[in-house]
Structures are given as C-alpha cells and as structure tokens.
C-alpha cells in the first residue's frame, strides 16, 4: 500500500521490518531522521527484540555493530560523510572479519570546506573497503534495497551499505510502498551466522595473519564479492516476485538498446537523466541512461553487455578524484578497454549543487556531437575560478 512518507522514515520502517537485533547510532546530517525514527520504533515497542545503542562516535557505532554481529545478532547502523570517514578503520575491519552488517549511508559531501549537502564523495572513498555498495535511485528503491541488503549480507557473510542521496532522498516526502512484514519474512530468513562467539563452542575471531596466508584471505574476500555478482540478480528476482516491483539488482538500463550515447550514473540523478533522455529522444537524439545499482562488486560483465552497442559513454560523476578525474569512469574505462568507444567524464552536483535538466540536456547534446571535453565540470562558475586563480582558467 502506498503511503506518503519521508525517505528516512520509509527506510527506518523497512529496516525495522528486517528485525535488526542491535541498532547503534551516532547522529550526522542527513542521516538523523533514519536513526530518530528507528529509536522511536524501538522505544514505542513496535520493534521488539532490538537493542538501540546511542554511541559516542561513528567509530564506536561500527565497532558496536562488529561486536553485535560477531555475537550473533543482526546489526544495523547508518551514517554519512565525515561519519563514514570516522569509521573507516572499523569499516575495513567489519569487511575483513566477514560480518553481515547492513548500513545506510545518506550520501553527503566531505569537507573541507564543510558541506552538509549531497554528493557521493563519502561512499566512493570507501569503494575498496570490502563492503558491497548498493545505490538507490528513489526512496522506493532505497526501501527495497535494504531488504535485499540484509539477505545478501547474511547469505555471503559480508557487510553491505545501501547508499541513498542525502536530503534529495532522505528528506523527500513521496509515495512509497512499504513492504509488508509478511513479505519481508518470506524473503529474509532468521540470521544464521557463519560463526558466533559462544562459550559452548569457543572460537578465536580476528587472529593475526602473516604473509603466509594474508593474500589468500584477501583473495577469498574477492571470491565472495564475485559470488555476490551472481547472487544479486537472483535475489533481486526473488524479491521482485515477493514485492511485485524492483530492478534487476546490478544495472538498470533505460532506452539503451539503440542508443549511440549512453549516460552512466548512480543514485537519484537517474530520475532527472531519464527525463532528459526522453526530451532528447523526442528531438531524435539516440541516447540512453544506464543506472548502476551495484557499484561494489563492480558489475563489469553487466556493464559491458549494456554498453557494448554505444558509440560513446558519458559517466556522470557525483564525486571527484582530485588530480585524476572520475571515480566511476576509471572502472568503466577498464571494463570497456579494447573497444573503440569514446568516454567522457562529467563531474556534477558536488556538495549539493542541483543537477538540472537544462544543464544535462545541453551536456548530453554536446557529448552526442562529440563536442564535450574528456573531463567536464557541469555548471562550473568560471568567473569564480578566475577570481581565485588570478585570471587562470
């Protein structure tokens, strides 16, 4: 049943229906509404059998989740931006220990300069942390991906982060179909941890591993991620059967079949892009959009398949690798190596700058005419830059 609900509250409801046993939270904008809603769900008794722990930092939030998960509880937390960076050491640790923690990241820029608004700098900086990363296009997507995330994490015993655009999604009120608790129960079985701290069967978790086996441990983590590439479409289909909606899990092509130019992007900007593509199609320009839902593990095969007919690919980046250029672009270029395809990187919407249909329209039109520079900053204020550089471009 559709309800008019804020993205954060919808996610909190979805998470609650996944019956987490330990939720730990440290507030950071724009994640706050999610953990506030969850605390109300626990305190009011609507979410039972769950310990809600108010911690003193994001580092502690992830650490509490690690302890809880290792002790056999379904553990959840949420963060954003600086908070994600503050828990980085524990992020890698959770992944290395193979703990099926699920975390929402309300995507936000990283300072300095301090900026609370949306881009993907935070999660992109953690693409190599060993966490699976799923990116939501809409609040409906965000809700459904959380249900998928718990199942995926627990099946593979590896942590999953669901990335949803801060404010643009977290604070947007729109109709969302919340999964029925019985639907979630049908899809998500009770947690059966791979190993658990139990006096009846003592195990040592987190031993020191030297050169003789460290590579093998990392390789096994890689195999797990590769297995996720097989499992995500299967689980997405299963979830689709239960919910009667949803994507394919890895990538989401839109009008790509005969597209000469395909724009690749992640997150909520996909909605604007699809509208823009419709406009350009009406003008006779053969363009399409490819949404990337799963960014880690990187779905290279699915991307190759979706992009193989395109003459040019524009990667719309909501993050920026200073001194290099695109973050997603590098992976896509590697996946498409050996093809004659032209590749463009467009950095857009950093620190919450709106990515408008007008700007996208002219950018894609330029790309389709091969009039675009290899690295472009959408709507860059050249006057401001010249002021700061003393006239340099």
């Amino acid at each position, binding site marked *: 049943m559709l309800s008019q609900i804020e993205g954060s509250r919808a996610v909190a409801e979805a998470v609650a229906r996944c019956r987490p*046993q*330990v939720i*730990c939270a440290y507030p950071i904008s724009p994640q706050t509404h999610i953990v506030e809603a969850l605390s109300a769900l626990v305190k009011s008794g609507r979410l039972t*059998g*769950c*310990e809600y*722990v*108010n*911690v*003193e*930092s994001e*580092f*502690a939030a992830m*650490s*509490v*989740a*690690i*302890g*809880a*998960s*290792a*002790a*056999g*509880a379904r*553990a959840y937390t949420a963060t954003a931006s600086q908070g994600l960076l503050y828990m980085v*050491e*524990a992020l890698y*640790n959770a992944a290395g*220990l193979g703990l099926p923690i699920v975390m929402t990241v309300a995507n936000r820029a990283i300072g300095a300069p301090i900026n609370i608004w949306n881009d993907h700098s935070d999660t992109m900086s953690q693409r190599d942390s060993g966490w699976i990363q799923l990116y939501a296009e809409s609040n409906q997507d965000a809700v459904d991906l959380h249900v998928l995330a718990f199942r995926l994490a627990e099946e593979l015993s590896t942590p999953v982060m669901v990335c949803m655009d801060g404010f643009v999604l977290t604070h947007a009120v729109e109709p969302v179909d919340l999964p029925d608790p019985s639907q979630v129960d049908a899809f998500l079985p009770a947690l059966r941890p791979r190993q658990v*701290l*139990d*006096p009846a*069967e*003592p*195990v*040592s*978790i*987190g*031993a*020191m*591993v*030297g050169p003789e*086996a460290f590579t093998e441990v990392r390789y096994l983590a890689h195999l797990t991620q590769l297995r996720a590439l097989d499992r995500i479409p299967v689980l997405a289909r299963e979830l689709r059967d239960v919910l009667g909606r949803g994507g394919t899990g890895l990538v989401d092509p839109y009008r790509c079949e005969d597209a000469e130019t395909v724009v690749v992007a992640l997150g909520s900007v996909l909605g604007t892009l699809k509208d823009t593509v419709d406009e350009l199609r009406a003008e006779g320009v053969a363009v399409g959009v490819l949404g990337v839902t799963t960014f880690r593990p990187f779905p290279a095969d699915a991307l190759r398949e979706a992009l193989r007919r395109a003459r040019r690919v524009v990667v719309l980046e909501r993050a920026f690798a200073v001194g290099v250029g695109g973050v997603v672009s590098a992976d896509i270029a590697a996946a498409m190596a050996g093809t004659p395809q032209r590749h463009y990187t467009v950095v857009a919407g950093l620190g919450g700058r709106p990515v408008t249909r007008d700007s996208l329209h002219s950018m894609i039109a330029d790309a389709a005419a091969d009039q675009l520079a290899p690295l472009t900053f959408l709507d860059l204020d050249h006057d401001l830059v010249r002021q700061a550089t003393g006239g340099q471009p």
Partner: protein
Amino acid sequence: MTVQRVKFYQTGSFAVGNRLLDPAQRSTQARMDRANSITSGHRACQGCGEALAARYVLDAASRATGGQLVVVNATGCLEVFSTPYPESAWRVPWLHSLFGNAPAVASGVAAALRARGRTEIRVIGQGGDGGTVDIGFGALSGMFERNDDVLYVCYDNQAYMNTGVQRSGATPPAARTATTPAVGPQPGNTFGQGKSAPLVAMAHEIPYVATATVAGLRDLEAKVFRAMQLRGARYLHVLVPCPLGWGSGTGETIRLGRLAVETGLFPVFEAERGEVVAVTPIRRRLPVEEYLRPQRRYAHLFEPAVRSDVIERLQAMADRNVRRFHLGGKR
C-alpha cells in the same frame, strides 16, 4: 576431588601459602578444574606480567561465571602473542577487532547477548594501556557512560610495548621509552599532569573500579570475582611489569609489582559508584629508589650522576598517593 592436607610453608612474602586456605578460597589456579583460558605455548616474553595477569583474570572470571564468558581484545601484545594464525592460545570465545575500539566492540557483544536473551553470558573487554588510556579512551568512556554490562580490564605496562616501547599516556614521568629517550637536561618522559584511568573511570560513577598488580594475584582474582557479581560497566586496572620495556630482569616481574605498591607509586584500591571503598594498605613503606633502581628505564636517574631532583619529584608523587588514598605505612 580429594583434598590433601599439607604443611605450612613460609613463602618469604606477605602472602600466606595458598594450600593453607579453605579450598573454596584457594586461587583458581590451584584448582584441578581451572579454565586455562589462555593455554601455554603462546609467544609472550619470559617474565611477561600481562600474560600472567590475563590468565588470572580470565580463569577467575570463567570460574565466577561458570565458563559463560566472551572476551574482546584490543590490538596489542596480548593479542599478538596469543593468536598468530593458525594458532590460538584462547579457550574462551575471543574476538579481536581493532586497537582503539575494544570497549565499543564489547558493548556490541553485550547488546547482542541482551537482544538474544543470553545475559547469562558475560563480557570482558581487555587491552594494554595504549589501547585503553590513549586510542581507546573515547570508546571506554562511552561504554562507561552507557553503563554497558562489560568488565573492561587494562593491563598497564606503561608504554606501547608491542610496537617497541614508545611512550603512552600511562608512561610515568622520567621513564625512558623509545620516544622519550634518556637524553638532554630532562631525560625520559616529561612530568605532565598524568592520566589516572581508574580515577577517570570513577568519575563516571560506574558500579565498580579497582586496581591491582601481578604481585597480588589473589587480590586480583578476588577483584575479578567481585566485578563479576555486579552488572553494568566495571573497570579493572592491573599494573603488569614488562621486562622488555622496563629493562628489568625476567625474574623481577612480581617483585617490581610489589615495589610499585609499597613505594606508593601505584595505589591499590577498590571503588564503587565513584567512591573508594577499600585500599590495600602499605605495610612497610619503601623509598621510590627501591622501585626505580632495578629498572633500566630509570638508569639515567642514577648514572652517571644521581638525579636526586627528579627522584624527589617522583617521591612527591608517591607521597601524594599515600595521602590521597590513605595508604598508611611507616617510612
């Protein structure tokens, strides 16, 4: 189990021989059914105070809880020497995550056990002084403030021994470490404000705070038993001499622990809800030189010239402890 009556042996210390005690009061280590939480064969140095203290703490906690124990370990010597893959010296469920998060991980374990209705299983967090009073201090304070059901044990050897004896927030003034070398006009560690983790723990008004040393192993066991009778956040700070870092003989570990107490440099006490409820009085107070001389980390205080100015400042610290904690003892 048969009980064998044995003769009284004077041990040469203030301790009365364990075998004279009622069986119920004997050291956990004297029991046939001791837990052996950490088995022999691990890679601690000879004379390691931390390995000794950890064995006593965890065996006592195992006995106190009927073996219903989960242990969370910070990065450090104890973690490294006990679990070089594929070996593990632990016979308790044991988790190592990071250097600075053991108290928070322990909180997570406790939360999971609560959520799973398994509160008969108790949680111990443990780490060295670096992991506790420095990098893990925020997590420790958070765990205290929430009053999570965790006993956290700090094995304090007063420096980062695992990485090669660098200064920590628990390193005493004047002590030589690799990052406070014995050079210049003020050799060794500076005289700062110091950082008493037990006093900071008490400021959180948690149910139980205690200090102990490896020189009082029965006292240590008794404090673990007391701690395990209580729920909520509890803190145990154990002084564990380190032959490598302190430059002391491997047979001196127990004696140095005792000297730290008898000079007044390390007060041994118990506190409940922020108030001191018991202290271990000093029977025969000794000057701090007695404690300093056997340790190479203080060698620069005695050669080439005796630095009586520095020794006096250390003596003043000991005197203050005696006054503050009412340790008594004649000089």
